[in-house]
């Protein structure tokens, strides 16, 4: 009996729980810590049942302080544990930056390999769920300029499972950003086979020949829908899910653009100095002769994501993506 054919369909958040449980079973040095991750199973239920199953010493509630979580995690990781820390929402990650930038990302380099910091920080990420202030931030760009980190974002239950396993197994620190909007949006069969996905490739989710849509996280779904809409008009869009932002697999993106000649980059974060800029910059450096139209960015505006009465007007949408594609196609 192959587990692949009998795996039940689960949501993205359930795939995360499944990956955590798999790896905790597999590797006794893996532990989970964060606010409310214990009895409560996390405010999003990512750690539901884990404390019961693995005990208080593998699943730790922390005092309410993100500096504490970050610093303890670095301490644990540098002393032989594999901590998977959860920050409750994207908007609370800023107090963790000091330990992430100055320490987690640097211990190996600073000590020339003597001390290492194999840790994962799980961050429920992004907007679109009508949440209160500071609960909807797309702040991935600030991690991508930090040498020594890996920055990963899944966009489906299967990729959530495979990429989280890879993140935990990685010997260096990984920021694992979880698009909350996708947590429960749909289900997919996810065999609990312990198979990790690679942390250094972009996934081509749909092949196409007229334009390349490059995106990550919750906007993957919008891009796939946009591609569908465009297909109805006879426009063939390729959709690339970046998945691992840092280190960036630019080759896959470049190959796609070489084929299509057009590129629309889509992300929720503010446009200016968002991670889309890096992709556009690499295209400007390396793909100038492949492009037949200027690169387009469909992004959040350069304002804080508004509270939910205006939130959807801030976010990219299928309409906006389709319009951008049409603009690039108008160029010849």
């Amino acid at each position: 009996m192959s587990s692949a054919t009998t795996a039940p369909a689960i949501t993205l958040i359930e795939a995360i729980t499944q990956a955590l449980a798999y790896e905790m079973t597999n590797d006794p040095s893996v532990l989970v810590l964060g606010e409310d991750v214990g009895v409560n199973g996390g405010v999003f239920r990512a750690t539901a049942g884990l404390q019961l199953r693995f005990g208080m010493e593998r699943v730790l509630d922390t005092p309410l302080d993100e500096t504490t979580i970050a610093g303890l995690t670095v301490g644990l990781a540098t002393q032989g544990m594999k901590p998977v820390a959860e920050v409750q929402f994207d908007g609370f990650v800023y107090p963790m930056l000091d330990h992430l930038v100055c320490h987690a990302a640097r211990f190996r380099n600073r000590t020339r390999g003597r001390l290492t910091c194999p840790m994962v920080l799980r961050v429920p990420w992004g907007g679109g769920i009508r949440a209160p202030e500071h609960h909807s931030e797309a702040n991935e760009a600030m991690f991508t300029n930090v040498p020594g980190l890996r920055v990963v974002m899944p966009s489906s239950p299967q990729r959530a499972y495979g990429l989280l396993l890879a993140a935990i197994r990685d010997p260096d620190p990984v920021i694992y950003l979880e698009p909350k909007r996708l947590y429960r949006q749909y289900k997919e069969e996810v065999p609990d086979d312990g198979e990790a996905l690679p942390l250094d490739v972009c996934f081509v989710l749909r092949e196409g020949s007229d334009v390349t849509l490059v995106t990550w996280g919750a906007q993957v779904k919008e891009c796939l829908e946009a591609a569908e809409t465009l297909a109805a008009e006879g426009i063939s869009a390729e959709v690339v899910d970046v998945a691992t932002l840092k280190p960036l697999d630019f080759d896959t993106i470049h190959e796609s653009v070489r084929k299509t000649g057009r590129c629309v980059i889509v992300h929720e974060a503010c446009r200016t100095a968002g991670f889309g800029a890096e992709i556009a910059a690499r295209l400007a450096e390396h793909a100038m002769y492949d492009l037949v139209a200027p690169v387009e960015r469909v992004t959040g505006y350069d304002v804080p994501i508004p509270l939910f009465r205006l939130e959807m007007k801030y976010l990219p949408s299928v309409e906006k993506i389709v319009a951008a594609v049409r603009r690039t196609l108008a160029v010849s």
Partner: protein
Amino acid sequence: MRTAATFEIDYVQYLGEDGRLLREDLPDFARDPKVLLALFKQMLLVRAFDTKAVALQRTGKLGTYASCLGHEAAHIGIGSAMQIDDVLAPSYREYGAQFVRGVKPREVLLYWGGDERGNHFSGPAHDYPWCVPIGTQCLHAAGAALAFKLRDEPRVAVACVGDGGSSKTDTYAAINAAGAYGLPFVLCIINNQWAISVPRKAQTGARTLAQKGLAGGLDCVQVDGNDLIAVRAAMDHALKRARAGHGGSVLELVTYRLSDHTTADDARRYRPDEEVKAAWTREPLVRMRTYLTGLGVWSEAEELAWREECNRRVDEEVNAYLAVPPPPVTDMFDHLYETLPLDLAAQREEAIEWEARR
């Protein structure tokens, strides 16, 4: 062995759980039943508002909402002790304190209804808005207190934070800065025993939360936070000290969160029923009601009438809230900088165009 330092932390309580006075040395304000009555009526009004707000959320007319059920004595005690020139830096739950200072219920609803305009409230223009990143408001209050001290103004900055928030590094930073500069600063740690699912004892090894203030050399006191008289008396004392230039205080107000953490939470997952049931016997309204009824200044009939009045007022506020049209899309651009940068002006045009297409 020499002793380097000793410390003692008092516990302040006047009204027992059964509504009887525990001590004779009542503070002046509490000798006037009219004063207590007015405060009690405020507590009832907040309770009515809170009940309605939860109902609105359940029926989809409000976003996530943080209930203040059980905190009425703490919140009204804090708000009523302050002067209007003082600055309040709330967390996200202290509506009672804010109502006393002039914030309108409709504004609270607007904020939780996903509209920034709720923060442009009718309370003192210098008061801080609700603060979601736990504990950060404490440092803003300390900064405000520093401004008051530097400008030699007789004003006090008051911050509220939870038992969970007492672990937050910002809270410690505020305590330390207040001590280092001798600031007119009062930190109210509202210990409602839970930080979402994390119980008080898991937050810290400290015996009291009041003693967090010792780390900064502040005056520290633990208060029965369900006893309005105690809260108000402790606040009066701390504010007077601060205003006189004698420095900052930490008040631990011991109370209980009778509700879920927010409407997005289900406390039954982590909290025993019996604990909640027991907490209901200590809640702040019952004991105040018993006391005032005992004094002969309050009756069941008066309570019924006042509750009706509360519901009428709350309904009025709810209707006003529901009638607020959504903000224009330009609102997200127009308040970010005093002058709109060119870059952003182009994006604002984009947004207007998209609106026009709808």
